[in-house]
């Protein structure tokens, strides 16, 4: 194992950018590492998407009492790949009268941003290998900026196809996506309030900070409560004490109860549910799949697309599913952390026995395992929704987005802020490190719940007043019920019905 001691190996895999004791990385090491991370990211999406299509078809057929694809490869696992190859060799039809440039561009515009947004999805906590761009401190902002470009692909496809179905599908899709982006944004802001950072890795494992709340370098002995778990910075890896290298160790006392969706109960949960609903709507999946409602619109915005261009929309949709689920995990469900902190990493004694390279690798793999499990569960949730819920009507969809999710998200946001302010007022030091005292927590929560209750009462009263007013005007302006010529049983005119 001579190469393990060579400088090249160490530059590539051993030295950490976060370790002040390590020599600085050379430029080629940076390049090779970036390329490797990129290969992991893109490779992950491109291998999982066919698997996802297979999983969806198999699960749906299982729930519908049929077999589904089971011929190509083991249990039909190679079916999506075979389909992909077939689509490559299909005729690429460009209909007459389409806007050619936009028509060809649209599938690329729909797919590229989705692939691009993989950049910041964190699958483990390593500052070197945790994501394609680990430690990017504007993670969520980047994601939102890139992911919202996707809607251009949809509307370009719909408009350029010169097809009425496509046009309607594209319009529906874009207005649905932008409507639910608001609910999504508000639930993301709720998480930002609770966690106080935009970095996707920092959101999960927390970050060390100074008195002013600025992020600083990690020191040995730091205990972080501000992520979605309790994390201690320790000198556990062999030889790390001399080099001043500290690693994040997940405390066994933390667990799923530290994840954001159970923070400031019930506000964290409300934000999580809002996000889950709007992520289904964002990806145009059932029960919000109106843009592709085959009973009304054939295939919606991609009716005119054939061959690989059609497959690109398809891939984009599935990759988008993957990405919104990964964001949901990062924001609300503890990222790569295990439901019990002790399971998130190797047990502590192993750290000093094994060589450092192996420790970090195995820890990353364990993290990836938990991330994958959660991703799998969320994808199954998507598919279950499609299997069990009927499609909404379009006016119901818009009403739900604008009259339901938007005000709910705004009020939820304000209540979280109120609760946090009260907690800070009562226990400034505890809230600063992320662990408010029990009294502070309860008073904050009760205040916020009280404000929420008052708001709900006001709303109810307004609703009741509106209802009564409507009844009164209806009674005044009601036209006497039309009497049919032969009145069999002359009765008093019945009360005008609610219009």
């Amino acid at each position, binding site marked *: 194992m001579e190469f393990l001691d060579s400088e090249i190996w160490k530059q590539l895999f051993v030295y950490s950018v976060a370790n002040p004791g390590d020599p600085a990385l050379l430029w080629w090491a940076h390049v090779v590492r970036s390329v490797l991370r990129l290969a992991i990211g893109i490779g992950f999406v491109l291998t999982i998407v066919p698997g996802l299509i297979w999983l969806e078809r198999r699960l749906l057929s299982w729930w519908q009492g049929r077999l589904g694809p089971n011929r190509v490869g083991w249990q039909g696992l190679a079916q999506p790949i075979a389909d992909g190859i077939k689509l*490559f*060799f299909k*005729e690429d*039809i460009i209909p007459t009268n389409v806007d050619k440039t936009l028509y060809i561009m649209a599938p690329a515009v729909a797919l590229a941003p989705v692939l691009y947004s993989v950049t910041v999805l964190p699958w483990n906590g390593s500052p070197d290998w945790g994501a394609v761009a680990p430690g990017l401190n504007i993670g969520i902002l980047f994601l939102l900026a890139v992911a919202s470009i996707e809607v251009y692909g949809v509307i370009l496809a719909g408009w350029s196809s010169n097809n009425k179905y496509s*046009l309607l599908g594209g319009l529906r899709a874009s207005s649905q996506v932008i409507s639910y982006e608001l609910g999504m944004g*508000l639930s993301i802001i709720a998480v930002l309030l609770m966690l106080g950072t935009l970095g996707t890795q920092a959101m999960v494992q927390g970050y060390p900070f100074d008195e002013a*709340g600025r992020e600083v370098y990690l020191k040995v002995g730091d205990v972080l409560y501000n992520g979605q778990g309790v994390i201690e910075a320790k000198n556990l890896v062999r030889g790390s004490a001399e080099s001043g290298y500290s690693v994040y160790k997940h405390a066994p006392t933390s667990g799923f109860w530290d994840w954001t969706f159970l923070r400031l109960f019930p506000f964290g949960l409300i934000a999580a549910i809002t996000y889950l609903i709007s992520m289904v709507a964002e990806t145009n999946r059932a029960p919000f799949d109106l843009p592709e409602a085959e009973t009304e619109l054939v295939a919606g915005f991609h009716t005119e697309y054939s061959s690989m261009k059609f497959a690109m929309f398809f891939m984009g949709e599935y990759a988008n599913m993957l990405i919104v689920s990964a964001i949901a995990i990062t924001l609300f469900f503890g990222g790569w952390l295990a439901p019990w902190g002790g399971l998130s990493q190797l047990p502590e004694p192993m750290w000093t026995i094994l060589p450092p390279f192996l420790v970090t690798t195995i820890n990353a793999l364990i993290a990836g395992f938990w991330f994958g499990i959660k991703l799998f569960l969320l994808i199954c949730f998507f598919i279950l929704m499609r299997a069990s819920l009927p499609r909404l009507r379009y006016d119901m969809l818009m009403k739900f987005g604008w009259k339901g999710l938007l005000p709910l998200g705004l009020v939820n946001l304000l209540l979280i802020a109120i609760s946090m*302010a009260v907690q800070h007022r009562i226990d400034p030091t505890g809230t600063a490190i992320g662990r408010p005292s029990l009294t502070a927590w309860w008073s904050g929560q009760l205040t916020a719940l009280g404000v929420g209750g008052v708001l709900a009462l006001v709303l109810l009263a307004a609703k009741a007043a509106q209802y009564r007013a409507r009844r009164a005007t209806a009674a005044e302006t009601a036209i006497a019920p039309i009497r049919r010529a032969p009145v069999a049983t002359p009765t008093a005119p019945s009360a005008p019905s609610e219009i």
Partner: protein
Amino acid sequence: MGVVAIGLAAVLVVLSWVLGPRRPTPQKLAPYECGVTPIGSARERFPIKFYLIAMLFIVFDIETVFLYPWAVIYKSSGSMMLFNLAEMAVFIGILFVGYVYVWRRGAFEWD
């Protein structure tokens, strides 16, 4: 990453163009309307509702853009926290007036 994503998308488009056969017929190239000969152009007027939704989206999306920086610094704002809260409550309050107005005017009714 961006280059790779765009490159991959472009390669997929070009590959299918290169690999696929091309045997166009007028029927095949006609816009799809369930097998019936297409009537009129698709570039027609579309419901104004979609336009309205787009305008409202811009208003509320800009509002959420303002919320992002506020949300990020809120937790670490220390003694300024109450001030921040009041400030954002005023902002959201003003916005809420607009929201109620739009609601009362029936902009969210879809029929």
